[in-house]
């Protein structure tokens, strides 16, 4: 156990702990979005895309500045995705020394960075797709944690049907549900895309170490840009016998053909080479012989090509068609910015989805409902869940302010949309039987669903006195609990749309 490994494990556990802790009730700032405070890729590109500096993320800049001194330490010591990748590789790949390493293609991540930066300049954000922290958090929320939760609770539930195991299994499950597992298993539709991407990143480790970090990661590329002349770096003394063991053990293939030379923009300071060197010739410090090499092979054509790709990509978003019917049913979280700004600032980290799944459980991923530019942005599906009246967890955890953190009293008054009856399906209106489950569940102290007791003439049954519900549009906030609880099968008889929604603009009263 080296210091570096300890650091990786510590930060990974911190990530997992904060993830588990990002649920109702959130007390204090200990939520998983804290990790974005040290993510300069998100800080820079989200602010650029939104044309608004995200002050909460200002501390990410000094972290980037540290790379000038410490090199690409973030990737080797801090990044939780990096730690996950390293741990996976340990089990997926037999520990054999790789043959002569090839460093072709490692320039690619720099073109990814250029592509993302250019698109962001045109106010289109693709960077969320490639940001490692956002990617890991998204995968945890939509895929890893649900699988773990579902698996554990299914296992214990099944075990409890064996008579002798009944009590211990159920007691254990109850205890887990109180402290570590979600109360109801969160299963997300549309998580397949995210699951596939995450699994690919892990599975490729079997064939190529730190594939993501070497070829794709734009955050790594960003750190790499600042690390070329780092003060802390790999140093090789005269004792080197050029056996090449270090080259073969380097997971980043950062050591040149001449083992004395290091490519500092690729070295993540894992220090494995120092461990394996039979002559003890390698050390990491501020003094000593060091010669550098580079993979930053970016001829002009590559730069131009990736810039063009960014431009074309951004442009393509502008002409994409939005299905207005479906978009009007994609309700945004309370406190969300205006749609364009929301899509620019949302980094699809799903911290809001994670928090909401422990409360009302309405926020879910979208695919193309809000247009391709809104791909994977979260929106409320009121048939699955609703927005809890006393809750504003989503605004609390959003790292970029795409969802503004509303004051609780304010949140209870603001409209996410409006509910509307479909009288052809609503039980009292359509068949004269009593229901008003919607009215029962409306959380407003002065309910937004009222009813009138009227005698109506029911076809086939004659006159009947029935309680007929209606929406008070001046009171409704569009929380959606009525739609969730409506007992009509299939599409509910009361639907929430984005009608009259209020978005945060930072204006006089904020809206």
């Amino acid at each position, binding site marked *: 156990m080296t210091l570096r490994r300890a650091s990786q494990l510590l930060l990974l556990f911190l990530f997992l702990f904060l993830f588990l802790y990002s649920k109702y009730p959130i007390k204090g700032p200990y939520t998983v979005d804290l990790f974005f405070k040290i993510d300069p890729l998100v800080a820079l590109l989200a602010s650029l895309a939104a044309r608004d500096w995200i002050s909460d993320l200002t501390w990410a800049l000094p972290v980037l500045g540290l790379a000038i001194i410490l090199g690409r330490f973030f990737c080797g010591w801090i990044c939780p995705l990096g730690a996950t990748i390293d741990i996976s590789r340990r089990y997926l790949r037999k520990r054999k020394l790789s043959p002569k390493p090839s460093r072709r293609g490692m320039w690619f991540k720099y073109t990814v960075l250029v592509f993302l930066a250019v698109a962001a300049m045109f106010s289109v954000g693709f960077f969320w797709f490639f940001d490692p922290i956002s990617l890991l958090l998204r995968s945890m929320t939509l895929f890893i944690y649900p699988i773990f939760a579902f698996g554990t609770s299914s296992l214990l539930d099944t075990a409890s049907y064996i008579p002798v195991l009944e009590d211990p299994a159920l007691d254990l499950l*109850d205890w887990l*549900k109180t402290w570590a597992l979600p109360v109801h298993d969160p299963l997300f539709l549309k998580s397949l895309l995210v699951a596939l991407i995450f699994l690919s990143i892990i599975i490729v480790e079997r064939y190529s170490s730190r594939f993501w970090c070497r070829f794709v990661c734009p955050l790594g590329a960003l750190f790499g840009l600042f690390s070329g002349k780092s003060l802390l770096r790999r140093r090789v003394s005269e004792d080197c016998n050029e056996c090449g063991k270090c080259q073969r053990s380097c997971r980043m293939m950062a050591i040149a053909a001449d083992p004395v030379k290091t490519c500092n923009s690729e070295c993540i300071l894992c220090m494995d080479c120092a461990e394996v060197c039979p002559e003890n010739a390698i050390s990491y410090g501020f003094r000593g012989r060091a010669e550098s090499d580079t993979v930053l092979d970016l001829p002009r054509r590559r730069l131009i090509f990736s810039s063009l790709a960014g431009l074309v990509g951004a442009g393509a978003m502008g002409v994409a068609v939005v299905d207005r019917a479906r978009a009007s049913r994609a309700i945004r979280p309370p406190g969300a910015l205006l749609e364009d700004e929301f899509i620019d600032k949302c980094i699809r980290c799903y911290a809001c989805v994670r928090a909401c799944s422990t*409360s*009302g459980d309405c926020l879910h991923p979208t695919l193309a409902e809000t247009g391709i530019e809104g791909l994977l942005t979260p929106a409320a599906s009121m048939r699955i869940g609703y927005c809890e009246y006393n809750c504003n967890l989503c605004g609390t955890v959003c790292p970029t302010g795409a969802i503004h953190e509303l004051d609780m009293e304010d949140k209870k008054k603001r409209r996410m949309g409006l509910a509307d009856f479909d009288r052809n399906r609503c039980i009292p209106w359509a068949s004269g039987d*009593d*229901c008003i489950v919607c009215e*029962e569940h409306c959380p407003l*102290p002065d309910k937004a669903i009222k009813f009138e007791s009227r005698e109506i003439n029911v076809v086939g049954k004659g006159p009947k006195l029935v309680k007929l519900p209606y929406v008070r549009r001046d009171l409704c906030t569009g929380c959606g609990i009525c739609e969730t609880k*409506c*007992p009509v099968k299939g599409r509910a008889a009361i639907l929430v749309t984005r009608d009259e929604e209020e978005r945060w603009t930072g204006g006089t009263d904020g809206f």
Partner: protein
Amino acid sequence: MGLTRRRFIRTAGRLTAAVVGYHLLPVSSLASENGPLVGVVKSSNHLEALRSAVEMFGSMKNFVSKGDRVLLKPNISWDRRPEQAANTNPDLVREVVKMCFDAGAKSVKVLDRTCNNATRCYDRSGIADAAREAGADVSFVSESRFKEVPIPEGKILKSWPVYREFLRADKYISMPVLKHHSMAVVSGGVKNSMGLIGGDRGTIHRDFPDKITDINTVLKPAFTILDATKVLIRNGPQGGSLDDVKIFDTVIAGIDVVAIDSVGASVMGESATTMPYLLKASERGLGEHDLEKIKIQRAELG
């Protein structure tokens, strides 16, 4: 003499349950000769009111035997604080848990299938903490733990999923909270059983009088304690505004759930005659709604 008869009926009930094959919770028929007894105690000291109401039936030992696994079901349905009176008073819950243990219960499980998010409800109602303080096992309702149970006396519902913890318990004690309910008019003990059933409960609202009676023929509590300390008199069943809460400082207890609800309704100024579900339940023999035929024992403590 009453003691012997009670024991006989209880043993007969247990034998019947064994024959049928799953737990049918035995109902003590202590008061069936004179019309059902309902205790109504008013006191600003709520715990005193509770104890006094229970004492009208002897003690909790008449309902909970040594070694019993007790299922105590308060109303934890809504994400509301205790002063908003949408859920059962947590202080009363704590005290009843203690009473069950004092009577020799092996375990007391406290749970409810909530309407709002369960974590929020259990926490903000204060009931999870209060029950745990007295040593109860507080757990969330697990969606996979419902078992389809036949309803032999069902008019509309012939079977329905019922929570496994109910089926595993030796005794079921119901602790509803009295409040206004737009559809039902008043929500009390009869409606409390909704928290132990699975499936799409919204459909129960259609033809509610018969359906809720069907459910209650299977979910019969040994004892019911109706919390009328703070009552939501408008905008129920969850309210929100403190203006809708009226202090009644009353605890109502009994074995006949219909009688308790009828008395509870009258305390609120309502009448069973305006409540179709109560009339239907009474008509079908679930209990007695007519206040003239109920033996109401009142007490008001200083």
